[in-house]
């Protein structure tokens, strides 16, 4: 009995350990594959034409700047929509809403997370694009703005559920002490609960942004996919083409091993580096603030 138990223990332990290590292995393998397929770009396409402003692969024009710009514009737009709304919703659910409202809101947000992005994109293409064109008198509604709004909607559930968990984890005593010292409910939320849950809320925002920058189907449908370099604020209301949509739209046509194929993987590397940079910045910020908080407390 005892020996079979230890065998079982041992087996389960190893299985869990392997699952843990496998994440590292997979990331390394993906990164290796990306590098192997993408780096030949640097020898095949001169840097000057790679960082130029015209993307037209069937004529060997591989300027990736408009694609990077397009991704950045929609991601910033999505952040502007999703961060206030997402964090606001999380605060409402965790701090303000009565119990019954909370019971309804949480599952609803989860349902929102379950809507496939292609469905949202299709709705955006059919309904929102036409509506925004009329509303803002735009040349076309297939623009970065429509994309930002939908990407915002896609990131909100991620932000809400992670941020809500973080707020929920703040000890009850923090709020009670603040209220006891005469702080209003808003002051308690803004100056005590939110700062205490800061690292979790920041993680929530980063996950949301990561979701937005990597989203493909929706932007492919609603942003118009015109590879123009965004300049100035008006770019938000013009068509753009993102890195993800480019890879999705063009991967099917390329012959394996061609320059175009390598450039698409190079775009993948660029995307990977951008999201890595976002994540590292975020954890650096969280880490620094935690250190400072610890110093103050000690």
């Amino acid at each position: 009995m005892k020996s079979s138990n230890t065998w079982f223990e041992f087996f389960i332990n190893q299985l869990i350990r392997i699952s843990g290590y496998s994440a590292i292995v997979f990331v390394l393998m993906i990164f290796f594959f990306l590098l192997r397929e993408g780096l030949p770009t640097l020898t095949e396409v001169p840097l000057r034409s790679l960082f130029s402003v015209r993307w037209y692969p069937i004529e060997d024009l591989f300027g990736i700047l408009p694609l990077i710009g397009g991704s950045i514009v929609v991601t910033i737009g999505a952040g502007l929509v999703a961060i206030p709304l997402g964090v606001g919703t999380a605060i409402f659910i965790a701090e303000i809403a009565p119990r019954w409202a909370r019971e309804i809101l949480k599952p609803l947000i989860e349902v929102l997370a379950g809507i496939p992005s292609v469905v949202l994109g299709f709705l955006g293409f059919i309904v929102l694009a036409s509506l925004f064109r009329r509303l803002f008198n735009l040349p076309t509604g297939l623009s970065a703005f429509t994309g930002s709004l939908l990407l915002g909607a896609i990131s909100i559930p991620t932000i809400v559920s992670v941020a809500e968990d973080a707020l929920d984890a703040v000890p009850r005593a923090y709020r009670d002490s603040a209220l006891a010292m005469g702080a209003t409910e808003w002051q308690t939320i803004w100056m005590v609960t939110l700062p205490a849950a800061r690292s979790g809320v920041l993680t929530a925002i980063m996950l949301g942004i990561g979701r937005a920058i990597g989203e493909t189907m929706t932007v492919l449908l609603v942003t118009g996919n015109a590879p123009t370099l965004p300049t100035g604020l008006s770019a938000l209301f013009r068509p753009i083409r993102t890195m993800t949509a480019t890879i999705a739209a063009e991967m099917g046509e390329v012959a394996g091993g061609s320059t175009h194929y390598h450039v698409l993987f190079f775009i993948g590397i660029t995307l990977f580096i951008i999201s890595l940079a976002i994540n590292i910045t975020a954890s650096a910020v969280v880490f620094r603030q935690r250190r400072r908080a610890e110093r103050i407390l000690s």
Partner: protein
Amino acid sequence: MNIIRLMKLITYVVLILFLFFATSCGASSTPQENGDVGEEPGVYIENEGSDTIVNLALAWAERYQSIRPEVRIAVTGGGSGTGIASLINGTVDIANASRQIKPEEIESARARGIDPKEFVIARDAIAVIVHPSNPVDKLTLQQISDIFSGKFNNWQELGGENRPIVRVSRETNSGTHVYFLEEVLRLGEQDNDTLFSPDTLLLPSSEGIIAEVRDNPNVIGYDGLGYITPDVKVIAVARNEKSSYILPSVDTVNNGEYPIARNLYMYTDGEPKGAIREYLNWIMGPEAQEIVRELGFVPISDESIAKSAGSEN
């Protein structure tokens, strides 16, 4: 202690072997399954490529399967480039293309031991379309070229309302895109290197183009005649200022009057045999060509093929 180490090692090895075994099993079983289907009385034909042709290919496949129930035909779209790439990779039996195979593609096919064989299976006109409320109703090829290359940016310059021009095109993997670039933007001239204006919207599907043209009065787009619905306005096109403006139709395509018409192709690996040969013969026959007419494409007739060959040379 040593025994535990050993046990650990064994577990890892077993797990890794298991993973390898599982993946290699998955990889090797698929071709076998396909092979089995080919040898059974039922025949399986894989058909992929041009989105322009996909509806036609589906209609053909449906009718053919009702005549020959033992044949199963799987049709998918994705674009001409996609279909030809799959033919080169050896994953389809028939590739549909709305443009001719490029010399580079033939080269990379040969390098993989694939010998693409071409069949003209129908003809198609590309209609230039605008919103029904747009007063502009006729353009020359030169004007269309200047619109899409970005020289004209307001409908006023073409006798329309004071509205910005929004250009809509298929993605670059579409044969329609490539054909429109070569025959309209570059007017069929070899040394012309006009490009689409960078702010041209590149939509992933023909339906997307129709939806945007139907909705937006600023838009000009183009699409295969088979996709045109009655709620968009078709522009009459002239070869130059002196020739007459012609609307696309079966007659104007077959008599060579409408300037933006092309052949539609199917490609096979080498001379087709057996079921694929029979299917292609049926496609060239009267029953299948009647379906071509029903779907708004132009059936092939000996004279129209002769004419197209004449105009392309």
